[in-house]
């Protein structure tokens, strides 16, 4: 009310005055009937003050609460009148609007009815009209409060939504507001200005009110920030793009920056965990110290089954029996020569035979060992054989006096033997838990003898991309894979595999090494090097895996196990266009290898 009083121009003041008196009178008048009348009277004089009108209305409502519909009708009419009083000019405009408002006000009335009921219900109907008046004033105050906010936000924007808001908030106010908002939007500036002068002074106040606040706020901010008010704070309004997925920052902070891509790509490499093919290997001797499986560069697999050596052609899928030993002995090792034309066969008697596979004829027998030859290795025309006695002999297979060197180091059965690809170094492992690394130029004593393993060393593998790197795996008591720098003799890495290591093969294409295990897992494990992360573990066989060998193209691994089966695993499958591998070696043979590497 105070605001209204302050800002109402003189003209309306007179009206105001009268209305006020009327308003003042009305609450005092006890009879409910009189109230509607005063309302009407008020409405006709054009300028009832809102407060008075409000008061009347609220007063009237309690009285009429019993008869809602009638009350509604009255109140609507009264409201319509009330609107007109707002401003003389506005009234002209608002008259046509009455019709509209009637409809609208119906809405509001329903709302009002309940509201007033509740409010009136709380109060004593007749006894405290004066009190109600005071109550009314507070109500109007509330109304004043509400409207500014609303007006500031969206009154002018659209009347329709405004109505709804009003319904929710304040009916009486809503009726008054509406026309004002409609006017503001519909009529010209002059009318708006007039309105502002009269009743709408609340609205202007509401408009202006936030601005001083914000100004003050900005002032304080400006002071705080040391910015003066000539500065504008501008925001880039378009919304930033949505994040594609939730983010776990902890993960992000721990993320290694560089290797993440490569290693994760390697991680993602799909490794076939099912065997490509399974063959029976009946009669395979379950002896850790023998080496009975080898895959030639000509894509043929030789396997020693008791007294026989079978050759399985991966190209044709055909099997042929190469030889059968005399009944008093058995095959203890097989090894293809580098060109894939010959296979060396070690026997339990210590005899070593060399067979021409194409012709299926024995070329020669070499007698040097008097104990079984458990392991062999070719270096061009040199065949190294390791025997149960712990001795390793080098044979030049071209000459009659074939034994050209004795490598004395092991004191127990030699079960692992591998030449480095360039033939400069030889690694041997034995049941005496030793790993011996020999320099091909001086075979009198081993270059290094490593005692780290705590069990027999059968698994030996030279790294294809790092000539100095040798991997060795120990037996069931040891379970470790050690990696050696064979130039310095230093141990560079170790893995505890958790089970007997029966063989090790490096992938020529991936920075990975596969190990085969005996008890308890009987599995194949593929390890990344040098991260030593186990990429996959394949439960391969039902009993311990005894032997393994890689296909000449390096993609497939063959494993023979004590369950008398021979399985082929495509664990190092090369993806088309993937050149992640070790270049160089065998590049010339690639074309033919790819042709060869279909197995049937």
């Amino acid at each position, binding site marked *: 009310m105070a605001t209204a009083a302050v800002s109402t121009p003189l003209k309306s003041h007179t009206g105001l005055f009268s209305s006020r008196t009327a308003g003042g009178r009305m609450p005092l008048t006890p009879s409910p009937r009189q109230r509607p009348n005063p309302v009407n009277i008020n409405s006709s004089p054009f300028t009832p003050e809102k407060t008075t009108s409000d008061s009347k209305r609220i007063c009237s409502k309690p009285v009429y609460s019993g008869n809602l519909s009638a009350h509604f009708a009255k109140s609507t009419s009264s409201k319509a009148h009330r609107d007109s009083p707002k401003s003389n000019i506005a009234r002209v405009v608002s008259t046509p609007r009455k019709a509209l408002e009637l409809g609208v006000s119906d809405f509001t009335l329903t709302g009002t009815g309940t509201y007033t009921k509740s409010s009136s219900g709380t109060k004593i109907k007749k006894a405290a009209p004066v009190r109600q008046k005071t109550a009314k004033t507070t109500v109007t105050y509330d109304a004043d409060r509400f409207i500014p906010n609303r007006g500031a936000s969206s009154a002018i924007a659209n009347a329709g939504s405004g109505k709804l808001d009003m319904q929710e908030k304040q009916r009486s106010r809503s009726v008054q507001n509406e026309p004002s908002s409609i006017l503001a939007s519909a009529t010209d500036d002059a009318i708006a200005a007039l309105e502002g002068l009269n009743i709408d002074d609340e609205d202007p106040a509401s408009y202006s009110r936030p601005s001083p606040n914000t100004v003050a706020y900005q002032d304080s901010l400006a002071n705080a920030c040391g910015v003066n008010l000539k500065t504008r704070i501008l*925001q880039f*309004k378009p919304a930033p793009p949505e*994040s594609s997925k939730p*983010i776990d920052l902890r993960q992000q*902070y721990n993320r290694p920056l560089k290797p993440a891509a490569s290693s994760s790509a390697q991680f993602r490499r799909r490794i076939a965990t099912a065997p490509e093919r399974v063959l029976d290997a009946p009669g395979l001797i379950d002896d850790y110290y023998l080496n009975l499986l080898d895959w030639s560069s000509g894509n043929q697999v030789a396997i020693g089954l008791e007294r026989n050596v079978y050759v399985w052609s991966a190209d044709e899928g055909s099997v042929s029996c190469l030889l059968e030993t005399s009944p008093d002995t058995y095959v203890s090792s097989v090894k293809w020569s580098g060109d894939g034309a010959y296979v060396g066969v070690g026997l339990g008697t210590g005899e070593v035979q060399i067979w021409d596979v194409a012709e299926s004829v024995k070329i020669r027998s070499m007698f040097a060992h008097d104990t079984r030859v458990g392991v062999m290795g070719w270096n061009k025309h040199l065949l190294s054989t390791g025997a149960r006695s712990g001795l390793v002999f080098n044979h030049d297979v071209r000459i009659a006096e074939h034994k050209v060197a004795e490598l004395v180091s092991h004191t127990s059965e030699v079960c692992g033997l591998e030449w480095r690809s360039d033939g400069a170094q030889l690694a041997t492992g034995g049941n005496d838990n030793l790993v011996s690394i020999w320099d091909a130029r001086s075979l009198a004593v081993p270059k290094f003898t490593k005692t780290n393993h705590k069990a027999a060393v059968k698994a030996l593998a030279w790294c294809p991309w790092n000539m100095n790197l040798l991997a060795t795996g120990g037996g069931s008591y040891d379970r470790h894979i050690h990696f050696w720098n064979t130039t310095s003799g230093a141990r560079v890495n170790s893995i505890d595999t958790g089970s007997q290591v029966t063989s090790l093969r490096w992938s020529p294409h991936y920075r990975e090494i596969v190990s085969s295990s005996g008890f308890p897992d009987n599995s194949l494990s593929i390890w990344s090097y040098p991260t030593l992360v186990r990429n996959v573990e394949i439960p391969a066989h039902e009993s311990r895996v005894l032997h393994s060998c890689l296909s000449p193209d390096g993609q497939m691994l063959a494993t023979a196990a004590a369950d008398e089966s021979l399985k082929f695993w495509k664990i190092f499958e090369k993806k088309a266009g993937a050149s992640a591998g070790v270049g160089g070696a065998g590049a010339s043979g690639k074309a033919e290898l790819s042709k060869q590497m279909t197995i049937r």
Partner: protein
Amino acid sequence: MASAGPDKDKSKVHKLSLKGSAKLVAEFFQYSIHTILFQRGVYPAEDFTAVKKYGLNMLVSSDDQVRAYIKKIMSQLDKWMVGGKIQKLVIVITDKDTGEHIERWQFDVQIFAKPKRPSKSSKTKPASPTSPSADADADAENNPPATTTTGAAPAAPPEKDKTEAEIQAEIAAIFRQITASVTFLPQLAGGDCTFNVLVYADASSDVPVEWGDSDAKEIANGERVQLRGFSTASHRVETLVSYRLAD
């Protein structure tokens, strides 16, 4: 300052460096936005690629939408920077759910090359069309009183002798600090944050439609940490991060 002899050259250099410096600062802002988006996990780390810059591996978003968004901001920022219209650049990180401002990275820009009145009216920057060469000498004297808060004044003169490499090193140090600041900044709700870029510009500056007035998006009762700054011959940039304290 005392060197009166090579005055002409100096002014020439100055003029050039003002523009170059503005570019350098704008570029710094660009990388700052990317870095903050990455470090604070506004976007997933996979969307970022490392780029060598300032002798560091700067992570820059490779998401097309984000890039386009930042590019739009930068295109306007460049203009403002060159025009000397900017006093602050602010990156506000907001919780998407509550709309609360969680973190606020503020970069204060001071421009040395501008003519300033001896009084504190350091904000009358739009008065750029005055001849910079004439005021260059006076400028050095005026700087100390003009800069109210920071102790940039004594630093101002030596800036002119700073080599490119030194500036780069200063910037690199800031980025290291931003990166390191994740250790004390509170954990953000992963993926539920968005960001806004605010600019404190002169009232007189031209404002394209994409930019609208905004409040400062200050963080109520926030903790503030002043980070390093860097300066070029014509600009000084100070970095400040404020963040909501964990409850």
